[in-house]
């Protein structure tokens, strides 16, 4: 129960959080993901939080950390499936998760990740994320 499974699919790592999060579990996930990105040279990380009903400041910070850490390791992170009530609560709490790419569901998240990789492969200029699907 102290670990959340990480699946490897091609260049991507997939995580689906299906349990109630607590701090140690979130910290383990951060650690495991960053280690695995390095080990399998992943280019993208997709985290599905559609089954998560509570994201508090700690969990939000971990999501932000994972995005920043994977960025440094040359991988993009997309958080998908956030419930509307969680989004409202996070912003009111004061944690708008700026810097974390989001998509409405796993499918859209995969498209976003693939597009990001293609953009980087096609032209070497760092793109300034015009296609953040946060609308």
């Amino acid at each position, binding site marked *: 129960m102290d670990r959340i499974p990480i699946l490897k699919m091609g260049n991507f790592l997939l995580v689906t959080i299906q349990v109630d999060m*607590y701090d140690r579990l979130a910290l383990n996930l951060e650690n495991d993901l960053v280690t695995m990105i390095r080990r399998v040279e992943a280019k993208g990380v997709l985290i599905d939080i559609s089954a998560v009903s509570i994201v508090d400041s700690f969990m939000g910070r971990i999501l932000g950390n994972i995005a920043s850490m994977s960025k440094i390791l040359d991988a993009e992170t997309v958080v998908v499936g956030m419930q509307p009530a969680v989004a*409202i609560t996070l912003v009111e*709490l004061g944690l708008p998760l700026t810097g974390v790419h989001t998509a409405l569901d796993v499918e859209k998240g995969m498209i976003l990740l693939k597009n990001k990789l293609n953009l980087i492969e096609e032209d070497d200029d760092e793109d300034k994320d015009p296609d953040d699907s946060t609308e």
Partner: protein
Amino acid sequence: MIALNREIIEIAKELDVVFFRQRLKEHAVKIGMSVLNQTKLITASSELVRNMLKYAGGGQICIEVINEKMQIGIKVTFEDKGPGIPDIHKAMQDGFSTGKSLGLGLPGAKRLVNEFDIKSEIGKGTIVTIVRWKNGL
């Protein structure tokens, strides 16, 4: 104010937090609280229970279903015997933290509930009380 239902939960370790959040959710669902209000109440509680564990090593939480002026709501009282907060005014400011966190816990929790009260005495402990009304905005 009439308390309709009351439950006391002891917090001593991290997994107690998961149990507490589940119980709180059950109480909120039982009175028919909307998903958004449930989420706000549980998130605020999650912040407060973390503070309790981190700074006081645990404490006691009382969940009450209350009825006041035709309104039904949930009141949660967090009581610890920790070191107390030296400057509550400062602790209530966004971004202030004596730990390594983001400093959103107390002010963030306050924004998510309808009523928020904090009392702290150095060397004695801290009591935080929050209320979220079933139909409150």
